């Protein structure tokens, strides 16, 4: 590209300023959903327009961007968003978690521990954890304001009554900083412990629902549970079929039409690094 066709990172400066204000407020009140004037983006809502706007607002020319979708760097959503920012911002990109300064993610937190120098941006479809049980926005806002979170446990109760255990496996509700219950976006509950006391800043953007919220660095995030049914994460019988890791989140891959399947790491960068080291 010779002449820049867009303002840096696509959004105009006024819009970025508006989003940054929302982000600042979100960081100041951990877990609180801050409304913002979500823009139309050149991709369909539901493809991560919230995350893209947050990333666009915080990106600087010196940043190195990593985009992951379900843990992988090479799936459609990740590839197209990465190319979008290469085209509109010209920033460096990487697939290595350790080299990235901004990581936009859909459905996963990288297995490699994050550092203070990194920012994790989540794409969020439904930011309201209470929506399942209460449809009215006026009412859910009031419930957040008055800290009426009993109904959240009604959902978990239903799980145990029906399935014998807390069957919620993704978008598992958690309490931030002892105050707001939030929806950590559809990450597997396997990743919930990584939210807690994380050195990196974690930002959540919901484009269609027009909400931004945040978990600042080193903030307590506690997953909801019952005393006699404590929170636990998924586990697998076998390690990753490629790298042999037994402490990672595994995806099931169907390999033929005769019932063949294998379990492999969902975090492609982490898996590749382990293979190279072996």
């Amino acid at each position: 590209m010779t002449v820049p066709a867009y303002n840096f990172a696509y959004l105009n400066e006024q819009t970025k300023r508006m989003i940054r204000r929302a982000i600042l407020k979100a960081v100041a009140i951990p877990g609180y959903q801050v409304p913002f004037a979500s823009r139309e983006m050149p991709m369909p809502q539901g493809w991560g327009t919230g995350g893209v706007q947050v990333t666009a607002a915080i990106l600087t020319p010196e940043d190195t961007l990593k985009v992951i979708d379900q843990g992988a760097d090479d799936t459609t959503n990740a590839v197209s968003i990465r190319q979008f920012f290469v085209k509109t911002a010209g920033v460096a990109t990487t697939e290595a978690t350790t080299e990235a300064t901004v990581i936009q993610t859909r459905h996963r937190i990288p297995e490699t521990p994050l550092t203070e120098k990194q920012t994790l941006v989540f794409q969020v479809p439904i930011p309201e954890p209470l929506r399942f049980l209460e449809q009215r926005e006026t009412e859910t806002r009031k419930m957040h304001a008055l800290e009426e979170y009993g109904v959240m446990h009604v959902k978990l109760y239903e799980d145990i009554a029906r399935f014998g255990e807390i069957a919620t496996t993704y978008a598992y509700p958690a309490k931030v900083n002892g105050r707001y219950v939030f929806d950590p976006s559809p990450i597997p509950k396997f990743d919930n412990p990584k939210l807690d006391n994380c050195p990196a800043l974690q930002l959540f953007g919901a484009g269609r629902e027009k909400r931004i919220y945040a978990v600042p660095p080193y903030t307590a995030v506690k997953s909801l549970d019952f005393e006699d049914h404590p929170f636990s994460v998924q586990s697998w019988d076998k390690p990753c079929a490629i790298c042999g890791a037994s402490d990672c989140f595994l995806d099931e891959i169907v390999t033929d039409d005769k019932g063949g399947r294998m379990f492999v790491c969902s975090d492609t960068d982490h898996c590749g690094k382990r293979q190279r080291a072996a």
Partner: protein
Amino acid sequence: MTPLLSVTGVCKNYGARVGCADVSFDLWPGEVLAIVGESGSGKTTLLKCISGQMEASSGSVYYTTRDDRRVALDAMSEAERRFLMRTDWGFVHQDAREGLRMGVSAGANVGERLMAVGERHYGRIRGAALDWLARVEITGDRIDDSPWSYSGGMRQRLQIARNLVTAPRLVFMDEPTGGLDVSVQARLLDLLRGLVRKLGLAAVIVTHDLAVARLLSTRMLVMQGGRAIETGLTDQILEDPQEPYTQLLVSSVLQV
């Protein structure tokens, strides 16, 4: 002893129309008050005003809390009022669908208030739910069923269990037997009477059915055109009505 609920000069106007006008009464602990009157006489408006669901145009409602404080409803913060509503108070709607969370199982419906006040032990919540379902004559094997699969009478009983699980001191009921057939009504009334007596509940029951009032209530308040025209002991009013309207009401009950 102080009255549990003290209502003084409560008025509610809907624009130029009068919902209820200048109603006053005291409700004492363990007492059941029936508000009777024909449709449109302001019974439900009054109930909503005194239970904090609607703001009265004028007048005051005082409630005596467990720690013996006398608080005005409109002086309470919304947080306090909502807390009161799910701990000390109960509200039984005429249509059980309004009072129940229809999307979740019966057990979750009963357990919700417990979870709202901080119970975080699944076993204990389930135990309490089973206990309360038994008390309202719903068998334990229906605990995981959706209220959609319940009959009208069962839904109403479930709603009662859901309200009573936190041991409230005061229950408001809006036509609790409305829309149920006669035999189911009789069973529900029997159950309600037993629970109210056993738990020493105070209750305000709105009904147009004098039989309900006679069975459940100790005192009665007759309304017409938004005003309380007669109040007194239930037996006294039903046996010896003073006001012409009350006489009409009592005499219009079918004698089978």
